[in-house]
Every structure is written in C-alpha cells, then in structure tokens.
C-alpha cells in the first residue's frame, strides 16, 4: 500500500491553521494582524538596537572585540538550546501522546516513520518558533556589524535549523522514555515540576554567580587570563558552540565547513536514533498514555480551612471560590509555576539588594527615591505578567463548563466576582510583599513607603480587573492548555493596556513625588498640599477606572457568550 506523504499527515494541522486565518480575516481581523505585526516589529527593532550598540562597541575593541562577540553569541545560543530542551520535552508529551489527532493517526494504516516525522515536525514547530523569531534580530545585528553580506541570511538559516532539530529530537526521546515509565498524565505533572524547578534553579544560579562581574576585565589578574577565558569554548560538545563557530567563522570570512558539518551530521544521526527509539517504544508508551490518573482525593481539608474562612459568604460564592482554589492546587501544571514565581521574587529582591546606592547622603536619597518610584513600574509589570498567566485565562477555562453555569441560577456577576477575588487576593499579597520588602531594602522614608504601598495596591486591583476583563473579551474556549492562553492576541492587548495604565499612573504620581524629592533635597518641610493631593487623586481615579471598566465590559461580553 502506498503510504500518505508527510504533507498529507500534517494536513489537518495546516488546514486548521489556514482556516483560522480565513475566519480572522472574515471577522475583520486585519486590524489584529496589523497590531501584531506592529508590536512584533517594534520588539525586533528594540532587540536589534540593543545588540547593534553592544556589537558596535565590541568591534571597536582591538583583539578582544571578535572574541567578546563570539562569546556573547555562544551564551545566547546556549540559553536558546537550554530553553529548547525543556520546552521540547513538554511539547513532545502533548504532540506524541496527548494530541487529539493521535487516535485517528494511530488507527490509520500510516507507518511508524511517518507518524514519527510528522510529530517531530509538530514538536519542533511548536517549541521552536519563538526562539527562531528571536534569533532573527540578533543574527541580523551580527550580519550588519560584521558585514555578513547577502549570503549570511541563508547561511544563518542553514546553521540554525539543525541546531533546533537536535533539542527537538532529544526532548522527544526523553519524553518517550518517561512515558514508558510513568503514565502520560503523571509524566506531565512530573515534567512540569522538574522543568520549572530546573528553570528556577538556573535563573537563581545565574543571578547568584553575578555574571556582570565576569564581564568586567578588572576582576582578572591580567589581560592574558581574560583572553584565555574568552578563547575557551563554553561547551565544546554542544550544538550551540558549533553554530557559534560556524557563524563567527563565516563572518570573519574564513572557510571552515567542520562546524556546519558537525551540526548536520549530528542532527541526522539523532533523527535516525530517535526514529529507532520511536519504533521500539512508541506503541507501548502510547498504550500507557491512555491510562487515567487514578487518585482518591479527600477534599475535606479545603472545606475546613478555606471553606470555614469564607463562611461569611453566600453558599454559591463560597463554593465557587473553593472550587477554583481546589482546581488550581490539584493541577500540577498550574501550581508548579509558583516555584518559578518564588525564584523570580528572590532574584528581584536580590537585584535590588545588589544596587550600589548608598554612596553619598544626598545622592543616596535621590537615587533611593527614584529607584523606589521606578520600582513601582517594574513591580507593576511583574504583576501584570503574573496576572496574564493566572487571571487572564480564568474565563476561558470555564468555557467547557458554561453549560452548567449558564443553565444554573448563578448570576454572571457572582462568577466574575469569585474569579476576581481568587486572583486578586494572592496578587495583592505578592504586590505588597514585593514593594514593601524592596522599600525596606532600599531604606526609603515613610512618605515613599506609604505612596508605594498605596499605589501598588491600587494598581493590583486594576491589573487583576484588566486581566479578567480582557480574558472575557478575548476568550479561548477551545484551548485546553492554560499556559497557551496568555500568548494569544487578547493577552497581547491586555499587556499593552496594562503597560499604558502603568505609564499613566506613574506619570500622574511623578509630579507629586518630584515635589517631595525637591522639598527634602532643599531641606524644606514636606507639605502634602492640594496640588500634590490632586495628582494622587488622578492616579487613584485612573486605577479605579481601570478596575471598574474592564469588569463591566467583561460582564457585558460574558452575557453575550454563545455556546
């Protein structure tokens, strides 16, 4: 029997993607597309600009310049490959074992190699597209600064492609082995914890060793030592090092085909080994993946603790909150992200602690106040990102259960209320902790402490409301994976709206804070006058409007949902 082509096996996927684009277009989605392209281009330009400035500086440094540029590229590609291994392991679990089209593919007379290649391609595409897009402005900057010429672009693609294939094969193989040991659903739980734990550990390690010190040659005994360190490959057996070598050799105008040869032969060899492993283990792994996670759960603990604590609420609200809390803590893919969050908070505070601020009395005060003030924006951005991950998907995740909620006498207001507070309370605790501790570490005065705490409080209410409101405006009812929801178009619009709010609130507060700084700096008494209060009022009004409006719009939108 003639086997279907790979293109044919892939057909449901690409046809679905095409259809989505068509639907978007018929819904007048060209505005969306323009916005996405605009934001993407801005981001690319920003990355390009940063790299361009750094590389131009490197080029001006005799001897060391090219070495530094190579080292930088090596580090970038190494971090890419580390991220790719982690994301491929998780993506491979979905595409090889949990995807909806597997029943059809496995039951059809399609041979194992085609299934393997189709699924490997799917894994590669899903896990690597972001890294590939990110590489474009970075490599463009290298090409422009080192005059790569018109052949550099195809050469870069030729180099990068096998570098992306290697982690995809490795990730798929790891998943294949794991699924044969544990059931797929348990593996997913396990992987979430391991992956996030590893990512958290990596971030912590990178921060604690303070790489910024390694970048300054003053710390080395002499220049030769420093050059010796730069010349040593970071990881000679990793494809990222070969890719770096290939690119830097090309840019220097030398001809050394070895790195490229290494990349392609390794990728080909790994695909072959991966295919053999797939042939041997896929059938048994796929069978195991059908097993459900059998777990007896006693929910009494939640009823006694959270249930009792919420005893003052009407029963519908109480049970709704209780349900959301249980769902969160029973889903390993959800709660395990708290590990990463905890690490990020530690790194955040570590960075604040590492700032060299307390050098002179007056300068110290000015910079401390400035950092404390700007920290509100940064903390707000961190909170917005957290809300995007945890609050934004809240309405979408109810999509499949709307039959129950809409056919019951539960008011949508109650639903929105519960979702809002389940998201806002932990976010508020985190916000106050982050701002309070930062201000303590910075040793700010009482005025900035009060302004900081009140502002971040107000911002948190608004950020949570924006996340929920935009989540209701741009729901993703078809997506089962909560992690994919924030990366949708709605998520982008939400982040842009939140950044605009942060900018507006900080702008309003700046006038008041500047008056305070000037008074202290000039040794005058700090007077909270009508002028100052009016700016505080503007900031408060902005936060209040950004809280009430999105919730109201979200509620109206939910009333029009059709299922």
């Amino acid at each position: 029997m003639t086997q279907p082509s790979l293109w044919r096996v892939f057909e449901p996927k690409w046809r679905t993607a095409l259809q989505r684009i068509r639907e978007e277009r018929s819904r007048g989605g060209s505005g969306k597309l323009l916005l996405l392209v605009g934001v993407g281009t801005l981001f690319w330009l920003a990355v390009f600009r940063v790299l361009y400035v750094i590389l131009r500086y490197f080029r001006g440094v005799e001897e060391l310049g090219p070495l530094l540029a190579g080292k930088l590229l090596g580090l970038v590609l190494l971090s890419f490959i580390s991220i790719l291994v982690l994301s491929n392991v998780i993506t491979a679990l979905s595409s090889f074992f949990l995807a909806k089209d597997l029943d059809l593919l496995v039951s059809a007379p399609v041979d194992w190699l085609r299934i393997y290649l189709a699924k490997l391609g799917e894994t590669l595409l899903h896990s690597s597209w972001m890294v590939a897009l990110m590489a474009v402005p970075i490599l463009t900057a290298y090409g422009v600064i080192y005059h790569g010429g018109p052949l550099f672009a195809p050469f870069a693609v030729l180099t990068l492609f096998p570098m992306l294939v290697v982690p995809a094969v490795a990730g798929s193989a790891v998943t294949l082995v794991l699924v044969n040991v544990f059931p797929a659903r348990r593996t997913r739980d396990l992987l979430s914890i391991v992956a996030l734990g590893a990512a958290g550990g990596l971030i912590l390690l990178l921060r604690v060793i303070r790489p910024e010190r390694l970048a300054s040659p003053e710390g080395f005994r002499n220049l030769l030592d420093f050059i010796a360190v730069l010349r040593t490959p970071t990881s000679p057996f990793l494809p990222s090092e070969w890719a770096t070598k290939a690119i830097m050799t090309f840019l220097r105008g030398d001809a050394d085909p070895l790195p490229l040869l290494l990349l392609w032969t390794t990728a080909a060899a790994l695909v072959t080994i991966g295919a053999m492993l797939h042939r041997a283990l896929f059938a048994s792994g796929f069978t195991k993946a059908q097993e459900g996670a059998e777990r007896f759960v006693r929910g009494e603990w939640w009823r006694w603790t959270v249930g009792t604590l919420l005893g003052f609420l009407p029963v519908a609200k109480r049970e709704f909150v209780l349900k959301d809390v249980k769902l969160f803590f029973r889903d390993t893919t959800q709660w395990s992200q708290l590990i990463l969050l905890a690490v990020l908070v530690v790194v955040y505070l570590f960075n604040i602690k590492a700032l060299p601020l307390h050098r002179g009395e007056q300068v110290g005060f000015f910079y401390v106040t400035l950092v404390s003030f700007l920290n509100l924006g940064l903390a707000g951005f961190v909170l917005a990102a957290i809300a995007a991950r945890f609050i934004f998907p809240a309405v979408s995740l109810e999509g499949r259960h709307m039959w129950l909620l809409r056919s019951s006498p539960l008011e949508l207001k109650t639903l929105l209320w519960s979702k809002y507070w389940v998201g806002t309370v932990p976010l508020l605790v985190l916000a106050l902790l982050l701002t309070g501790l930062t201000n303590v570490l910075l040793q700010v005065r009482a005025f900035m402490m009060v302004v900081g705490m009140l502002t971040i409080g107000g911002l948190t209410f608004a950020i949570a409301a924006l996340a929920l409101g935009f989540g209701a405006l741009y729901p993703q009812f078809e997506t089962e994976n909560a992690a994919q929801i924030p990366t949708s178009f709605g998520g982008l619009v939400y982040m842009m709206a939140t950044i605009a709010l942060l900018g507006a609130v900080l702008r309003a507060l700046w006038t008041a804070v500047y008056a305070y700084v000037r008074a202290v700096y000039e040794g005058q008494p700090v007077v909270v006058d009508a002028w100052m209060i009016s700016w505080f009022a503007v900031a408060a009004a902005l936060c209040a409007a950004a809280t009430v409006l999105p919730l109201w719009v979200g509620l109206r939108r939910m009333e029009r949902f059709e299922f």
Partner: protein
Amino acid sequence: MIRLENLTKHYGSFVAVDDVSLEVSRGVLYGFLGPNGAGKTTTLRMIAGILRPTDGRVSLGGDDVHANPIAAKQRLGFIPDRPFVYDKLTGAEFLRFVAALYGQEGDAVDRRIAELLEVFELASWKDELVEAYSHGMRQKLIISSALIHRPQYIVVDEPMVGLDPKAARLLKDIFRQFVSRGGTVLMSTHTLEVAEAMCDRVAIIQHGKIVAEGTVDDLRRQHRAGDASLEELFLKLTGGAQVRELAEVLGHGGGDGAP
C-alpha cells in the same frame, strides 16, 4: 409548563431555529426529535438559558428564561449531550458545587448526594477525581447533578449516549417516576424506540422548523401512516431517501469483504 413562543435563532445568515412555538404541560414526557443539524440542541440550549434567542421567548412555569433567569432556572435541571465536568473535582465535590449554584447546602444536600451516587452506582467513586471517570460515568454524574436540587423541569439532550443498558433503564424509570409526580421532561433523542416507548408527545424538527407535533398516534393519523412505527414516520417526515442511498453506497464501496 415549558412554553416556547416564536423562538428563532440565527447564526449569521444561517437560521438554526425558525419560529418554533411549543407547549409542554406539567406531568408530560415530551420527545424532541429530528435529524442531525435540525436545531434540537440549539433549541434546548435556549430553553436552558445558555444561548440567547434572536427572537421569541422561552418561559418555565411562567417565568421568562431571559428576562427573569434566576427564578426560571431555579426550577430547571439541564443535561447536555457532552459531559464536560471539572476534571480536578471529585464526584461528590462536583455535586456539592452544583447544589451550591442553586443556593443549597448542609446535611440535606450531603444526604441527597449520597442517595444519588448510590442510585447511579457511583458511591465507590465519590472521592475520586472526575478525570478518572469513563464517559458513561460522567454522564451519570451529570444526570445526578441535574436532579440534585429537585427541579420541576428537566431538559435533556441525548440522555442515553454513553450509558450502559442498566443505567439507561434506570434513567427511563427515573424520568417516568419524575413525570408521574408532576414533573416535566423535554428530551431530545435519536433513539426512536426509546421515544416511542417513553414519550407522551413528540415534536419532529427539521431545518429549524417543527414539521409534526402530537402523540405518536396523532402523527400516524395526520400522515395516514397506518400502524407505522415512529422510525418509519420519522423517515417519512424527514426524508428517508438518504437511507436508501446509504444502502447503495455501502453496496458499491464494500470492497472484497462486502457481501
């Protein structure tokens, strides 16, 4: 009484339900029949308040489902065709959650949960997460959830799908008892034998319009069908030509193994 007045639903230019009017009296088990895509599920979802009609109104016991939803929905139990339940709740927790949506809690609810789980043979699974339940078990859980608050009206979309013969029989008995105590059931089904055996009245919908309504005997009389079965009547009313075409297709495409 469940009353539909000139109920209409458009999806863009497509008319899914077209000016449907219907009355289902107290104590009646009413069958809602029709081919795939005829508009049954859309109609039931509008009755349950999940979809908003483009035009017309639905009332349950005199309360408009869309103008006065809380009062109307208090009396309703809805059983959808696809059993989507929160995977990370246990069966007992899910039922307690549903009871809370109807404002019910306390020992009486706990006793009711235990009763329903016992009746549907889910008692030994009550502390297990729903993600481990089979399709049929989920369906039983959803049926239990529709009964937890003692509704007056049950609207049910394809109730027998996924149920084992014992559970299907149990469900038929429950519906009959529910109706005999004054409750009302509006049920869509493709299982015409079930409809013929159970339903007091039926309506057949096609292309969004009701093409026949009454008792099975009424339909036979109206369409001069003699003692034809409901299946034959259904095929006559909804275009049974496709069935003959299907036989021809199977005959041509059966391959070597076909008789």
